[in-house]
């Protein structure tokens, strides 16, 4: 398993700056994030956006591996229920997310580190507010236990 990417960025840390991986669906959340940018809403730079075609495409292993590699939080953002471009992708993710949360909890990581949110293409403001809120929340939780595991090697 590759473990370098997240380590490099956090080598010279003194003040804790969380690293959040966001999986955004192409049709709603990614467009929302784009709108946040073009509308010049300010939000923290702690987020790294990964564009996927649909939240229904996100395998539970993608979320778990992001945490395993040292991400402090994982955000999954998709279309509002009923708005999915592929009819029911977000419903699939909603169901799957319950199991992801359970798995994260049983492994011993705080389940608050993973979040599922619905953002439409017109909600740039909501996206910026969400990132701000999530960054604050993760800052309070502290660094991910894996960041410490990876760095102590």
């Amino acid at each position, binding site marked *: 398993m590759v473990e370098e990417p997240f380590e490099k960025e956090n080598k010279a840390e003194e003040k804790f700056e969380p690293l959040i991986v966001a999986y955004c669906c192409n049709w709603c959340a990614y467009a929302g994030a784009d709108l946040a940018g073009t509308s010049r809403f300010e939000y923290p730079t702690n987020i790294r956006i990964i564009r996927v075609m649909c939240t229904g495409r996100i*395998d*539970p*292993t993608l979320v*778990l*591996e992001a*945490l*395993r590699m040292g991400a402090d939080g994982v955000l999954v953002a998709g279309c509002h229920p009923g708005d999915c471009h592929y009819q*029911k992708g977000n*419903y*699939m993710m*909603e*169901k*799957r997310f319950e*199991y992801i949360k*359970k*798995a994260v909890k*049983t*492994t*011993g*990581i705080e389940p608050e580190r993973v979040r599922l949110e619905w953002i439409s293409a017109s909600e740039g403001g909501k996206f910026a507010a969400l990132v701000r809120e999530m960054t604050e929340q993760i800052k309070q939780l502290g660094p991910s*236990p*894996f960041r*410490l*595991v990876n760095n*102590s*090697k």
Partner: protein
Amino acid sequence: MSEKKEKLKRKTDATIDAFKSQRLRWVVGRSQVKVEVEEAKYQQTVDSIMKDEVERHMIIGALKEKGPLTVEEIAQLTELQQSKIVQHIIALRKNGLISEVGEKNRQYLYQAI
């Protein structure tokens, strides 16, 4: 690396492997499941499958990491009950994921294939 961190790493790796397994993939990730059982019972089944798969992958992980081990040694590494490990070993042998490779102190040694 402290033992606690090692344990966390091992458990997370087992969980990731469990989610890659066919058995869990069949039940996780469907929006609607068309089975003739009530929702609560279905949830219970999925939970038990998830628990089993994570434990099984912890056993496989321990065997891959430390080579051939006896049930007692697996129990020390994974902190699972010996009776539970034997149940998992039966299932894992049936699926052809582990095999016996001799004996140690009159106990069978198992190895991941």
